[in-house]
């Protein structure tokens, strides 16, 4: 309680914050866990608060997904135990409106309450000050608020379940289904709650992103030039910029839709629309406007959900291959290129929407081009591994899985980027396969790598390696078992979001493949309990470790594990980039950013420079 709350006093005054006057105190596990229940302004505590919350939400989102999978494998059949518990009034069977709610909320929870906050919220918060040598974020209070804004968001998402069975307009909430209260059982108050919650998530992200940008620009330790920053920090920085520019559009659109629903404005509702025999709308609006505004945020959001994982995987990979990142600057530039192009590709979600077909052509070209920086990154990761000394531990295995899965997700994207082919694949399971390979296959494996890699820094203990590997193997196999066949479903034109597609004669033979997918998904879902068990038990019984258990170079590894309030005992000075593994300047196979080597001995060892 005592030291962790000092941020409140000391961060106002940076002169006072050099820790000269303070006694550096390393918190115990109990103190860390205790501080997580308070309104702490310490970035590490806020990061952990985000991490714990999102891990719980991961299980909620997973449970919703298993509901979807149950229905697709055993349509309109009684679900044992859970069905009776939740859908007792429907005979334990998932009704069609419940099914639409399940996939809507699965996507909503996973995107807004897991992927976005676990990357930017959890890892961004925990890592940014530690990796750039700052004692905390630039705005600790704003930082705390960004976490606490998540809780009302979770509350409103939770509340939405109690109105009309829950929101059921898809996570994209296209009007007029989402704009007209009578359009579906879930289009009433549930949709309003949903919009409020999404807005609150946006508020949370915005407070975070302002903080990250300011911190990274202003609070780097001496010697930490921009091009000495780890790629994780570059990725967080670029993500923060993306968020700051894209999010206002979604927030504005959300308020417009709210006012369409609540005050009868018609931004998104054209005239003469008759839903469920209600009176015709007076209208004058454009439904396509919502799609443009929504995707103007949500496409960059795809990169918000990917770039930080790319950064973290780069760090893990360089460390575990004991080799400098191959092409550091091309890696930075390609991150920036993905972010830049990410703003002009949103139309590829709308190829069949009826927007001007000429736009389809230009969005096709920009979308194809965004594959380029992704390809460059992949080749550079392979280059990083080439000639390294690869150590197959849990973080590394998950990082390799990231590349392996990202290649699939990237390549399957090319089919949909091509407009004529997308005519066929749009809204089929091919899309579902594609974005799960990116969001789960890439991002979540990246997150697993990140959790196992930085866990020692969070709690001063190691996670169990055997459990970590078991979790990895089961997840990897079950993941591919669940999502690879979805490509084939998509090629067979199996559409998304249908509660029971099997009454179409051309689709009925796909039931068996769907049952296989469901079994894989159940295995994958339950495998996550291994991760949770490993994570929570290691907090208490993991093997104790020192500052730098991986022999890594990054600045965060020069702080104690776990770092106390203020992070570093003394102000760190940075002499080089974070990827100088196997450098000839030293006997060791790593060379920390803070380690000073006098010029004379540098010249003696490496006359040609590096």
């Amino acid at each position, binding site marked *: 309680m005592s030291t962790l709350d000092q941020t409140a006093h000391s961060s106002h005054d940076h002169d006072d914050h050099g820790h000269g006057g303070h006694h550096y105190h390393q918190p115990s596990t109990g103190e860390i866990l205790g501080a997580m229940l308070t309104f702490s302004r310490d970035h590490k505590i806020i990061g952990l608060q985000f991490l714990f919350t999102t891990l719980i939400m991961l299980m909620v989102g997973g449970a919703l997904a298993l509901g979807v999978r149950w229905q697709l494998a055993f349509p309109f059949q009684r679900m044992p135990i859970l069905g009776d518990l939740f859908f007792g009034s429907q005979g334990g069977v998932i009704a*069609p409106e419940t099914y639409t709610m399940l996939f809507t909320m699965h996507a909503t929870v996973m995107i807004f309450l897991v992927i976005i906050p676990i990357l930017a919220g959890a890892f961004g918060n925990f890592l940014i000050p530690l990796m750039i040598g700052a004692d905390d974020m630039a705005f600790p209070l704003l930082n705390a608020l960004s976490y606490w804004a998540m809780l009302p968001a979770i509350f409103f998402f939770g509340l939405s379940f109690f109105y009309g069975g829950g929101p059921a307009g898809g996570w994209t909430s296209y009007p007029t289904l989402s704009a007209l209260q009578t359009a579906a059982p879930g289009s009433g108050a549930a949709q309003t709650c949903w919009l409020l919650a999404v807005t609150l998530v946006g508020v949370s992200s915005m407070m975070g992103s302002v903080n990250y940008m300011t911190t990274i620009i202003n609070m780097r330790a001496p010697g930490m030039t921009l091009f000495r920053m780890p790629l994780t920090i570059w990725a967080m920085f670029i993500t923060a910029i993306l968020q700051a520019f894209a999010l206002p559009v979604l927030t504005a659109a959300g308020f417009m839709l709210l006012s369409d629903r609540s005050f009868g404005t018609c931004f998104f509702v054209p005239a003469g629309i008759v839903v469920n025999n209600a009176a015709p709308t007076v209208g004058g609006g454009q439904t396509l406007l919502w799609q443009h505004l929504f995707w103007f945020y949500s496409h960059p959001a795809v990169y918000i959900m990917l770039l930080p994982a790319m950064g973290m995987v780069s760090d893990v990979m360089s460390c575990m291959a004991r080799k400098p990142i191959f092409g550091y600057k091309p890696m930075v530039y390609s991150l920036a290129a993905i972010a830049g192009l990410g703003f002009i590709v949103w139309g590829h979600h709308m190829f069949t929407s009826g927007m001007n077909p000429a736009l389809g052509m230009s969005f096709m070209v920009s979308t194809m081009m965004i594959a380029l920086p992704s390809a460059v990154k992949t080749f550079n990761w392979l280059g990083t591994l080439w000639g390294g000394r690869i150590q*197959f531990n849990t973080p590394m295995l998950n990082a390799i899985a990231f590349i392996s899965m990202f290649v699939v997700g990237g390549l399957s994207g090319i089919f949909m980027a091509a407009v004529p082919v997308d005519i066929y694949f749009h809204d089929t399971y091919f899309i579902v396969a594609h974005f799960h390979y990116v969001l789960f296959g890439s991002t979540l494996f990246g997150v697993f790598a990140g959790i196992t890699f930085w866990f020692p820094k969070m709690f001063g203990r190691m996670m169990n390696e055997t459990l970590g590997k078991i979790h990895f193997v089961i997840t990897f196999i079950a993941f591919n078992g669940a999502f690879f066949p979805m490509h084939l479903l998509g090629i067979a034109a199996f559409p998304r979001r249908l509660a029971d597609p099997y009454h179409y004669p051309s689709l009925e033979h796909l039931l068996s493949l769907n049952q296989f997918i469901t079994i894989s998904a159940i295995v994958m879902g339950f495998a996550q309990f291994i991760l949770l068990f490993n994570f929570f038990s290691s907090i208490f019984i993991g093997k104790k470790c020192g500052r730098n258990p991986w022999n890594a170079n990054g600045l965060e590894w020069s702080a104690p594990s776990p770092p106390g309030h203020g992070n570093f005992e003394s102000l760190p000075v940075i002499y080089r980039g974070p990827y100088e593994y196997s450098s000839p300047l030293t006997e060791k196979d790593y060379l920390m950013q803070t380690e000073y080597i006098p010029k004379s001995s540098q010249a003696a060892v490496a006359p040609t420079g590096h």
Partner: protein
Amino acid sequence: MRRFWPLFFLAWPIIAIVWSWLAPYYGWWFHKPAQSPLGQEIDNLFYLILIIVTTVFVGVNMALVYVLWKFSSTTPGEKGTFTHGSHILEMVWTVTPAGVLLFISLYQMDVWARFRMVQTFDKQALAHPLAEVTARQFEWRIRYPAPGRNFKNKAEIDEWLKHPSPDDVYTVNDLHCPANKKVLIHLRTEDVLHSFFIPDLRVKQDAVPGLVIPVWFEASKRNQYDLICAELCGWGHYKMKGRISAESEADFAKYLHALAQRQADDGVPAKVETKEGEGH
């Protein structure tokens, strides 16, 4: 264990490729080859991309597995190669994929233009729309112009789209059309978004509130095709099922005529109707 992990990462691309190879034999592939000329071109583009993508997939995975196999290490503290990159390699692996991607996107343009740009539409089909299709929760309402009706110009078609004629012919969920002929429908919706999807013909177009969107297709075989709603439209989205029946020109004319007659039938024998026709 050092050799286990490279093999682990080798196993999965092999399984993926074998699985995809076998998929058509199990029906996990296109239900049928495209049943329309434009659809066949879309299929060709799909297979072109598939070949490119599979080549890259195999190449990258071979490189990955090779690297994992060759450079794995169990000796702690052993040093790797100290290099920060290669300018030439960066250039090669930037320019090459850029060329391939640009080729793919430019190569696709023509098919897209023919599917969606009204300027390229068949004049005959534009001048003689087959029907107006109105999507609504959860059915497809179809309105044909009266059998044999000829629209004089575009203005008359627009007028017909705004104000139905008394002699229009109505039906639900069952769209008939002549085979081997480009036909055009005007797609609209009464309530929320829907999507007009005929998988076998490779046709998909959203129905957007407030818009009337012309969609053309051509079925090259006399057959029946599924019409699926592909855009979430509410709880009953899954059962919004229609059928396209492509038949010979004569059969279609016969069908439409019979439909018109059935609709005009007020239960009174036809003879009586003509006798009292003057009275109306």
